[in-house]
């Protein structure tokens, strides 16, 4: 292996950034991690597009067309792509809308709910096209590893990253594996 640092990219699609917060919960281990890795596109660096990377961590499911573009960019650029958290793996809480008609959903949020001036459903051409159902990311691109949890515990992130950095097949202990 060359002496360059391992490149890692992260993003949140239809997620809440809770998984990212849990990643930050590895606390002072972040310093050790930064000796070994450099971050490419992440909300932490504010780099907008994913370049060639060794590992991509994707939080959140796919709920609109932009999510698919970002996800495909990650798949194209990341040697190893990891689905992080319940939303990326099952659709998660956003998938609770899957049996509600999308227009009913919009009306409930933007028209019937008070507080929004004008009370109109947003219709700007710059807004990404929403899908009628939210899907986990493995239904769209090939995923190499999964890190379940809502969010996955910090120790599970640490285990996954250290296993990958050391060339081991990632394996979680029983108490690190949960779906909630």
């Amino acid at each position, binding site marked *: 292996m060359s002496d360059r640092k391992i490149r890692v990219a992260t993003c949140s699609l239809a997620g809440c950034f809770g998984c990212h917060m849990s990643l930050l919960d590895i606390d002072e281990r972040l310093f050790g991690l930064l000796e070994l890795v450099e971050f490419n596109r992440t909300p932490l660096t504010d780099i907008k597009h994913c370049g060639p990377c060794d590992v991509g961590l994707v939080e959140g499911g796919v709920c609109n067309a932009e999510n698919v573009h970002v996800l495909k960019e990650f798949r194209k650029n990341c040697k190893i792509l990891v*689905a992080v958290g*319940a939303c990326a*793996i*099952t*659709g*998660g*809480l956003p*998938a*609770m809308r*899957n*049996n509600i008609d999308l227009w009913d959903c919009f009306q409930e949020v933007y028209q019937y709910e008070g507080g929004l001036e004008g009370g109109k459903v947003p219709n700007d051409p710059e807004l990404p096209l929403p899908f009628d*159902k939210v*899907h*986990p990311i*493995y*239904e769209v691109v090939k*995923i190499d*590893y*999964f890190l*379940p949890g*809502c969010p996955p515990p910090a120790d599970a992130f640490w285990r996954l990253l250290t296993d990958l950095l050391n060339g081991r097949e990632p394996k979680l202990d*029983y*108490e690190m*594996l*949960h*779906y*909630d």
Partner: protein
Amino acid sequence: MSKNIIIDGLTVPFQEGQTIMDAAMAAGLYIPHLCHNPEFKPHGSCKLCTVNVNGRNVASCTMPAAEGQQVLNDIAELNAERLALTQMLFVEGNHLCPACEKSGNCNLQGVAYYLGMMSPHYNHFYPAREVDASHPDILLDRNRCIYCELCVRASRDVDGKNVFGLTDRGIMTRLIVNATSGLLGDTSLAATDKAAQVCPTGALLVKRKGFAVPIGSRIFDRHTIKDVQTGGSHE
């Protein structure tokens, strides 16, 4: 003289009338299962407890134990099939664990953790299923039903009320309620009934109890389903 079967190389005694599952449980051996509960007549539907007996795969919860049986249980091939069955159960319903009160106490989760399920693997169905909140003390969320018939058996055989039943077949199977309105609130079901206690998932929940124990301190957060179900408790 006691009779024996062999499970994964171990000699396990049995009595006449016991199934392979009964004998294994009595010996403290774990065979993964969801529709089985030793308090009720076996149902044999989830097929998670499938074992290999003298070269043939059978459901251990319904297969009578018999002298000379060589049983394979905890082997990679069977556990891979059990994992696939569990993954199919996850995608056929709407099992959104972070939004479920049963999370951490759910046998479907417990089995999935035990089998090391990292993702549901298959494409999700996201079926449209009815939620029935009409009963003052019990919630019926069909999104989480796995059709094990434990509530059907408990209501019929223990409570004597016949509140639940399954209708239609295959992927159309549904859990129905024995009332003209079809609503749980119009039945005699009580929160203290056995039928309200036996659901292995979060399909039937007694209301106002959901967060008595916080997430993270629940049964399968701390113990494997193997340890729980071979330790005498069947919660």
